């Protein structure tokens, strides 16, 4: 049982030399391929750093370019050399110069010995699985790619488009089933010999020369022809972010890498001294037989990837300022807007706070100041109650408020007497729960006992403002959860809608309302409306209140606590 390494090197040669030495000293042959683009002086220094090691070889050098056949050619040259020069080898492990061994070689050896004749190579069919992070899938095998993706991106994309339009397709050689997978594998001598001595090899090579990124499909496809036992996973921990760039491991990933129980990680940052010192240093005593477990790291990274592609909802900051409609939620958490409730009920805010345990603000968009809960002048995160600051950027005010109080439901009052700029934003926000009792703004007017000439003007203005706001709430673009009652309907049966609202805000509480908020005294309200009409105004938003003061509903017994069986 012996495992050897084929190492592809093109940068950070000092680190690669240290890693190669690490393996070679532990009795693992290493064959190194140095990219021909590396200057000669550097190569010489690299070779000098590895003198005195009998089991290190340098193979013929190819000029390697990303995404082209040259990398496979280098791999094949190195593998051939390893198999020929070290006849005792049973496995070849393909690594890069920036790979870092995470576990002692002995553990790798015994791991392979326990699973004889097994090939560890990620190999996923190109047809059925979306293995690729962005980019081309099966078309890698059926189109031609004469232009370098890194250098001539436009030509590359244009040529791909052209081939699609023309309907050009290359024929895949008979007997090949396209498979994709990580470039880094560990294969047995039998499988490699079979691949390298395949009678159809020249034909395959000619085909794969023109395939896009053959290093991720040549061995992955051919292994399906020749292997007797495939474990479709890589022993190398290698993470790609959503743009397909390899993830780099720094010193602060030490614990994460330790816990992964993988054998090799790619790619380590050359300046990560702690990582190299730790993993190339003297190994810890005691054999660890754990299965490699990259899933732990996967979970962590997939969470991070989501944050980077979709961002944190409702957060507006220097490096996240989504275009409108692209923001993945305009605010970060659900909140409730109550319109008309604090006018119709005398103690609505206190009552609501008791019922749902949320933070209940007054009119946050009041023209004079933002009425934060408990009369605060500065709210969470340093939000000022200054109307000027708020009106300078009303959306930012609201999104900041919701962001700053993550974890605590926010409720606030709104009405036609408030600044209306925020109206559309509220309506478009799926997080907003907007409940409106239309016409309730008339109740404070009714109680104010001002002269009807002033009242009429004021009432007309409020009614017009509210009507406009209701138009917004009823617009097809509205995504908020909107409920609208006329005041007349609400007064008839207040408990049912209140129960619905409370259940929605605090779904787990699931309790029947035993206590109603105190309804304002509406005796004479119908007459009040009639007088407004007589003055020439037409109040209609509050619904139908007969002028004969037929206050059929609760107002007859306004102070009595409402009990529901």
């Amino acid at each position, binding site marked *: 049982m012996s495992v050897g390494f084929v190492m592809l090197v093109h940068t950070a040669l000092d680190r690669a030399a240290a890693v190669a030495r690490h393996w070679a000293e532990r009795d693992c042959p290493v064959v190194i391929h140095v990219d021909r683009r590396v200057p000669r002086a550097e190569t010489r220094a690299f070779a000098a750093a590895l003198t005195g090691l009998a089991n290190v070889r340098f193979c013929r050098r190819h000029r390697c370019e990303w995404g082209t056949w040259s990398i496979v050619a280098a791999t094949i040259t190195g593998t051939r050399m390893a198999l020929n020069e070290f006849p005792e080898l049973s496995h070849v492990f393909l690594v890069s110069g920036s790979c870092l061994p995470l576990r002692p070689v002995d553990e790798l050896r015994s791991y392979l010995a326990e699973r004889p004749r097994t090939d560890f190579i990620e190999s996923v069919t190109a047809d059925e699985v979306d293995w690729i992070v962005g980019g081309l899938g099966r078309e890698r095998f059926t189109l031609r790619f004469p232009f370098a993706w890194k250098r001539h991106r436009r030509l590359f994309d244009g040529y791909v488009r052209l081939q699609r339009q023309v309907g050009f397709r290359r024929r895949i050689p008979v007997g090949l089933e396209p498979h994709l997978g990580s470039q880094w594998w560990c294969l047995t001598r039998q499988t490699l010999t079979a691949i390298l001595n395949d009678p159809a090899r020249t034909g395959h090579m000619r085909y794969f020369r023109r395939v896009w990124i053959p290093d991720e499909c040549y061995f992955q496809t051919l292994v399906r022809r020749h292997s007797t036992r495939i474990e479709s996973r890589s022993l190398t921990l290698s993470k790609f972010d959503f743009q397909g760039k390899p993830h780099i491991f720094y010193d602060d990933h030490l614990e994460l890498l330790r816990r992964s129980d993988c054998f090799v990680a790619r790619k380590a940052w050359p300046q990560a001294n702690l990582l190299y010192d730790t993993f190339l240093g003297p190994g810890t005593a005691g054999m660890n037989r754990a299965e490699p477990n990259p899933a732990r790291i996967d979970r962590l990274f997939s969470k991070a990837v989501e944050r980077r592609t979709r961002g944190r909802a409702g957060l507006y*900051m220097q490096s996240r300022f*989504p275009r409108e409609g*692209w923001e993945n939620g305009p605010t970060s958490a659900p909140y409730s807007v109550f319109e008309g409730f604090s006018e119709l009920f005398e103690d609505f805010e206190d009552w609501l706070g008791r019922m749902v345990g949320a933070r209940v603000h007054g009119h946050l968009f009041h023209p004079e100041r933002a009425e934060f809960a408990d009369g605060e002048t500065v709210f969470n995160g340093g939000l*000022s109650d200054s109307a000027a600051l708020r009106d300078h950027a009303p959306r930012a005010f609201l999104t900041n408020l919701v962001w700053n109080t993550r974890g605590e439901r926010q409720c606030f009052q709104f009405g036609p007497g408030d600044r209306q700029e925020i109206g559309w934003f509220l309506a478009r926000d799926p997080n907003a729960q907007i409940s409106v009792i239309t016409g309730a703004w008339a109740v404070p007017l009714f109680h104010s006992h001002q002269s009807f000439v002033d009242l009429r003007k004021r009432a007309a203005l409020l009614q017009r403002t509210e009507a406009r706001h209701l138009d917004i709430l009823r617009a097809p673009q509205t995504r908020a959860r909107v409920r609208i009652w006329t005041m007349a309907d609400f007064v008839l049966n207040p408990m049912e809608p209140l129960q619905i609202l409370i259940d929605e805000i605090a779904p787990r509480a699931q309790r029947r309302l035993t206590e109603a908020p105190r309804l304002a005294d509406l005796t004479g309200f119908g007459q009040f409306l009639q007088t407004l009409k007589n003055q020439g105004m037409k109040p209609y938003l509050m619904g139908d209140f007969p002028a004969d003061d037929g206050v059929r509903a609760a107002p007859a017994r306004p102070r009595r606590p409402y009990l529901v069986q």
Partner: protein
Amino acid sequence: MHLAEVPLAAGGDEASHAPFPDLRGLWAACRMRWMRRRLLFRALRKCGQLAAVADRTGAIRPNDILCFATVRNEAERLPYFLDHHRGQGVAHFLIVDNDSTDGTRDLLTARPDVSLWRTGHSYRLSRFGMDWLAWLMIRHGHGHWCLTLDADELLVYPHHDTRDLRDLTAWLDAARRPSFGAIMLDLYPKGPLADRSYQPGQNPLDVIDWFDAGNIVTKYQPPQRNLLVRGGVRRRVFFAAEPERAPTLSKTPLIRWNRRYVYVSSTHSALPTHLNRVRGRAAGDVPSGVLLHTKFLPSIVAKSREEKRRREHFANSSLYEDYYDALIGNPDLWSPTSTRYQGWRQLEALGIMSRGRWD
């Protein structure tokens, strides 16, 4: 239905909805190009105002990270400023001294990794020092990652405790990002400003460690395509009546410089405009940092008195007299909603900065 009120135009990114060819966009690009040339020319014109005091730029090696700053009477802050950024991997500091009288010059000439120039000309007329720095950056910054700061700014970025600026800039290079954004975070003490004491060389966070965590306002500015971020404690306390005057917090302090680049107003925006693209497309985050702003050290009260007299810090200084008066009155900026600084992970959790894809 009032369709006119439907928010149609995207307020966010530069995706223009104008029909092709986008004439307005072309015109803006043209204007910005001429602005950049004009500013470069200005820098060339003003280079005569600088006199070298200690020119050690011969020691700069390729790929070194350079730090540029204009200072005046900053002997108090500079020792920690230099230590902090040297520790993050800045190899050389190129500093313009605007007529300091407090020993700043001696302090700087004594440091082997500082090159110093001096000038007695007006700070305001040189675009708050940017003309002088622009010249030094043309001369010495070409091809380097350049960090342009004020002496009261300390850069922190994700992972700054374990990775240095060389790691960050290498990652930015690989991600093809030529610039790195940061916002200023105004730090203040609990209690009246002047009631604390600070010793040169001391970590300012020992003295001022509170900030406003969630009151920024963000706005996109089309011609320069940058994001204007305002807010923080200064907007809350000093500009509650006139929010438009509140200082801008967003900056782009770290750029892989080219001699054709130029900063427009302080480091708030740069030209060409693609340097200002330091935020995510659609909804994602890109890496960003924070400039811990140590303006409100105890000495601010005395300094405000001097600045009010010198009128060198704002283009129209008379409008800011109230601001100076408030500072001279030794105010308490702290509120029960203030947040205490605990490190970069806290800033990231609060949504003030992001590590983006740089895990």
